């Protein structure tokens, strides 16, 4: 009785007793309401609820403030026809009622509220690094574009925005969605122009977010911005292996790496790091830096070496970025000699996770290496009898005293 036979038996048994309910189901379809994909940025089901703000505002001048702040560079930055009428830039004119809010995430996390004349009503920090940036800055009454240069400039100066931590997540929420999206697009563009002058090669990711109670609650409960909360929810929805709780611990940079490498259409550039911006939904400038990580080619090399297989011998090679229990890894999958292999490689250190280093016979099983061959005969099966389930998850315990990489994790505090 070999494995194949058992599998076939199991399959036959279940198929034989599977009920036939197609007719019943078909009759229920016409009454079943289908949920359409919403227009806003999302990759999987997320409950959407519009929260009424109840603050009326002048239709003509609404320009939903987008992303956070920029520096104090003085007015007149807005060019072209999109600039609405507004009073002189500067803090002397009183600010109006809330029209929109913008959050901005690098490591520091800042939230800004804007009135319908694009002036800053208030600005608050969401985390400690944000506090540091906003220290001694009084941005209320300033034009939003001007104010954002100040904040981004502050992040550059204080070393939060670097060539390795180069991602700027800009998120807009507004009562008027159309205006909000327009402003998000425009401001991401402005920010990009501004940062092009610096040498770091920043990546700007802009997004418009619908007002959503669940996202707000999640953000508040975890002490993060709504922009980050939104990305986390979408990542978790797009990939069953990512849980919201594990993602909350990641830095903005790490989230952006996962975001731009997330599963999308099969023929899109999943591994390139620059996602295609969706029409009217989000903006993307630059490339999210993966300097901290080894390349996918290196990960593949490590995995192949570990198993003792040459690249030309392997078939169906797949290398994917993943996040396993808060650790960013490469999953390297390939076939060799009719068997499947699956190896997890730490994306920062290049270590094979859980496996002992050194040359491995292609037929030996190691933790973290998947070998699957149903044609094994009985004697062979016994090699895989192990009683060490407890060991399996230990590989994700990052207890390495000698591991410099732990320090990297501590830095990215949000």
């Amino acid at each position, binding site marked *: 009785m070999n494995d194949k036979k*058992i599998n076939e038996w199991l399959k036959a048994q279940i198929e034989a007793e599977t009920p*036939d309910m197609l007719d019943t189901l078909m009759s229920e379809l016409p009454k079943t309401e289908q949920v359409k994909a919403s227009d806003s940025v999302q990759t*999987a089901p997320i409950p959407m609820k519009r929260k009424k703000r109840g603050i009326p505002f002048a239709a003509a001048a609404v320009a939903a403030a987008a992303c956070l702040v920029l520096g104090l560079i003085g007015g007149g930055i807005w060019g072209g026809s999109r600039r609405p009428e507004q009073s002189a830039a500067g803090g002397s004119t009183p600010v109006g009622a809330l029209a929109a809010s913008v959050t901005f995430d690098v490591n520091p996390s800042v939230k800004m509220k804007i009135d319908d004349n694009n002036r800053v009503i208030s600005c608050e920090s969401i985390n400690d690094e944000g506090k540091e940036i906003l220290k001694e800055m009084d941005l209320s009454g300033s034009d939003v574009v001007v104010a954002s240069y100040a904040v981004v400039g502050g992040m550059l100066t204080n070393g939060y925005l670097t060539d390795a931590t180069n991602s700027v997540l800009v998120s807009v929420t507004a009562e008027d969605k159309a205006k909000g999206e327009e402003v998000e697009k425009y401001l991401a563009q402005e920010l990009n122009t501004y940062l092009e002058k610096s040498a770091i090669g920043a990546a700007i990711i802009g997004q418009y977010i619908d007002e959503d109670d669940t996202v707000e609650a999640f953000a508040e409960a975890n002490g993060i911005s709504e922009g980050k909360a939104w990305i986390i929810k979408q990542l978790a929805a797009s990939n069953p292996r990512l849980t919201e709780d594990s993602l909350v611990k990641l830095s903005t940079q790490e989230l952006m790496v996962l975001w731009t490498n997330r599963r999308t259409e*099969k023929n899109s550039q999943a591994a390139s790091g620059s996602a295609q911006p969706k029409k009217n939904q989000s903006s993307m400038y630059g490339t999210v830096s993966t300097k901290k990580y080894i390349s996918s080619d290196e990960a593949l090399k490590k995995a192949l070496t570990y198993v003792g297989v040459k690249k030309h011998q392997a078939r169906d090679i797949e290398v994917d970025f993943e996040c396993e229990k808060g650790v960013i890894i490469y999953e390297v999958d390939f076939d060799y000699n009719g068997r499947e292999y699956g190896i997890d490689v730490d994306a920062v250190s290049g270590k094979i996770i859980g496996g002992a280093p050194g040359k491995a016979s292609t037929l030996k099983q190691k933790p973290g290496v998947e070998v699957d061959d149903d044609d094994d005969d009985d004697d062979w099966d016994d090699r895989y009898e192990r009683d060490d389930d407890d060991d399996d998850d230990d590989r994700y315990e990052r207890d390495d005293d000698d591991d410099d990489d732990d320090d990297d994790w501590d830095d990215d505090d949000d």
Partner: protein
Amino acid sequence: MTTFNEQWMARMAQGDSQAFASVYEATKSSVYGFALSIVQNRADAEDVMHDAYIKLYQSAGQYTAQGKPMAYLLTIVKRLAYNKLRSGRHLADIEDDQRERAAARADHTTGMEQQVENQALLDMALKVLDEEERQIVVLHALTGMKHREIAELLELGISTVLSKYRRSLAKMKNELELKGVSL
């Protein structure tokens, strides 16, 4: 059993009931088997199966093409099955239910007797496995998913899946041999 063609998802989202039928035929045993491996009784497995297909039809518009429509469907099954478990059916009820259904089936022709026997055999084989082993071995036998994909669906590490899979086969082999089943 044919594979779950991703294009059916988009068509289902448009309300195409033929596409739904295609999905059903391609996946029914996987869905039923997986549900059964979690809830461990046939009445609940049928309920979960029914609800899962309705839920799939409802939410087809929100599926983004990622090449994994089966995983999408089975995730729905998993959630519904665990909800069912949590709704607090007592073990005694489950066993009563199984006995009733077995008795009901036995009332029919002798062909049914064989079916009852097979079901009992399946139950015994699965009973020797733990929660995760049951799910792993059923997914592997029914869906053709790779261990990596199974690990992802069940939110387990790949080593765990592999070692549990091997242990499941060994246990089942043992159990079947004890019952005098030769394959």
